């Protein structure tokens, strides 16, 4: 997993609530057995005016000029600014894979759906929850200033605007540690292998029907 520490990135605003995982990456792309290559199909149905299928060369497809990702001023954005309940719907990790593959490293929203939120951390993408009013003001500032950037400091747990306003955000110590160091959970968990084994043996003795 890629490390995440300090990010100074261009912001792309996606001004809709309840953006679901079907919208983030439509189901036809879930047939892939790979983890990478989903970026060109991120928000496929909003981004292109034709119907996308796996294997198409997206550089040749007609783009929807009104969709934010296609606007010149947001090219190269690394921070996605979103509304309530971002990532609701299915558990498909293809959603954060597509977001990461496209080049986003962080998403800021007033709330996220639970499984999506979890999946982001496994892929070096930092989902940040900020209060609704703060997100609202970021949307306004982003609309008003071309080239609007934010600085995200994971160690300090802050999002800082170009004017120097710093907003704190929360993250569990475990997730922070994993992101800062680019650590994969499995290796960490297996340090507790003995404990897991002992737990399992006890469980087997008490509830043999589970095994």
């Amino acid at each position, binding site marked *: 997993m890629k490390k995440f520490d300090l990010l100074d990135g261009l912001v792309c605003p996606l001004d*809709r*609530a*309840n953006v*679901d995982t*079907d*919208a983030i990456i*439509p*189901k*036809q792309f*879930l*047939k*892939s*057995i*790979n*983890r990478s290559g989903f970026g060109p199909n991120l928000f496929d*149905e909003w981004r292109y005016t034709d*119907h996308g299928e*796996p*294997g198409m060369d997206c550089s040749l497809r007609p783009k929807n000029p009104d969709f934010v990702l296609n606007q010149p001023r947001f090219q190269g954005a690394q921070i996605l600014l979103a*509304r*309530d*309940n971002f990532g*609701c*719907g*299915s*558990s*498909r*990790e293809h959603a*954060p894979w597509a977001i990461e593959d496209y080049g986003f490293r962080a998403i800021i929203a007033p*709330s*996220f*759906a*639970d*499984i999506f939120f*979890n*999946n982001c951390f*496994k*892929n070096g993408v930092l989902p940040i929850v900020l209060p609704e009013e703060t997100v609202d003001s970021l949307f306004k500032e982003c609309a008003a200033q071309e080239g609007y950037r934010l600085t995200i400091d994971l160690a300090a747990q802050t999002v800082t605007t170009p004017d120097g306003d710093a907003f704190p955000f929360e993250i*569990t*110590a*475990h*997730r922070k540690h994993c992101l800062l160091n680019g650590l994969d*959970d*499995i290796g960490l*968990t*297996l340090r*507790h*292998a003995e*404990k*897991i084994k002992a*737990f*399992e043996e006890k*469980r087997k003795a008490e*509830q*043999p*029907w*589970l*095994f």
Partner: protein
Amino acid sequence: MAQTLYDKLWNSHVVHQDEDGTCLLYIDRHLVHEVTSPQAFEGLRLAGRTAWRSKSVIATADHNTPTDNWDQDIQDPIAKQQVDTLDANLKNFDALDFYPFKHEKQGIIHVIAPENGATLPGMTVVCGDSHTSTHGAFGALAHGIGTSEVEHVLATQTLVAKKAKSMLIKVEGQLGKGVGAKDVALAIIGKIGTAGGTGYTIEFAGSAIRGLSMEGRMTLCNMAIEGGARAGIIAVDDTTIDYLRGRTHAPKGENWDKAVAYWKTLHSDADATFDTIVEIKAETIDPQVTWGTSPEQVLAVGGKVPNPANEADPVKRGSIERALQYMGLNADMPITDIRIDKVFIGSCTNSRIEDLREAAGIVKGKKKAASVKQVLIVPGSGLVKRQAEEEGLDKVFIEAGFEWREPGCSMCLAMNNDRLAPGERCASTSNRNFEGRQGAGSRTHLVSPAMAAAAAIAGHFVDVRDIL
């Protein structure tokens, strides 16, 4: 100290706890399907790891598989590759059960695990699929996970998790005639919103919930995720125990008695406290129909499509306008004026035997409306299909002009060929009405099996209570 059911399930699975409250939870049952597992098996191989306890795994192919022309195999080469990859990964894996494509017990993963007794009270159940919440109906802690977590569970038999807050949703009273678990689920989501349960595990309780069959409870817990909840759970009672008795993987003999004694403790203590309590009177729940592109955009069948002009909040107004435009509906039109093109009865929400009986009861002796292009009936599993055929339900559907299909996810997410054309409108018993869910440009209205069947006959939504 008094504990909630969630406390009991959580506490009995904690292997390790970090200072920040992050826990390692032991996982009893791991359900696997073809879409969210290939990268996990691949990751395991790349890291040179093996599965911790392969016997915890139940696997099947359901999302990509066709529901007709099984003799022609899977035509879509990319879908076929994914299903073949599952077969290859499960070969020599020693799973508890693997029901590959065309197996007599194949079906939707959330239908086959319970019907084979592989979901038991007191378990933790995970699956790379959000509707894993279904299994909470058994007093199990069950929730969806991503592919990295699938790999993590395969490798370690644990999940890294932090405890959610607890919500109690109490539905007291008697549900009216023609009102079922699906209506309860939609009414709850209409009330709390699709993010209302975010950060919570919801326990459903109250006399109306206790009155539901296991099928109904599964429908309700299935939709807990649509309310944003991590999991939905229901306490164990005699209905749970009666359902499990004699099923393939349910305990037998002396173990059965021991298990039952333990399962009977799986309820919230009388004086347990919850972070949030929501109360609903069963009598106030009417048959529900979604009108928009989020399950919270739902109304009683007697209602009228909302008018954005009446919404003061600009973000909400915007989403109503967008939904009306996408759905091709006019503000203020009665729900019963909405005409439909197709009907889908199936999905892990509503494809169990009871759902098919409910639909057949409405359809018997009638024909689908001429204006309705297609009605798909997709049983949740091979066992459900066989049971329905033994009861003659297939004939009722076929005589009405419906299509009787093979089991699978089908038009719930339209990964196979069962899908709507752009602009087509469907009465669907599935769980999501998102833009494009049933095919690009598709328009989905979520309803109960009875409401879907009634709409198929009338050609538009009707209040099923008027024809009972």
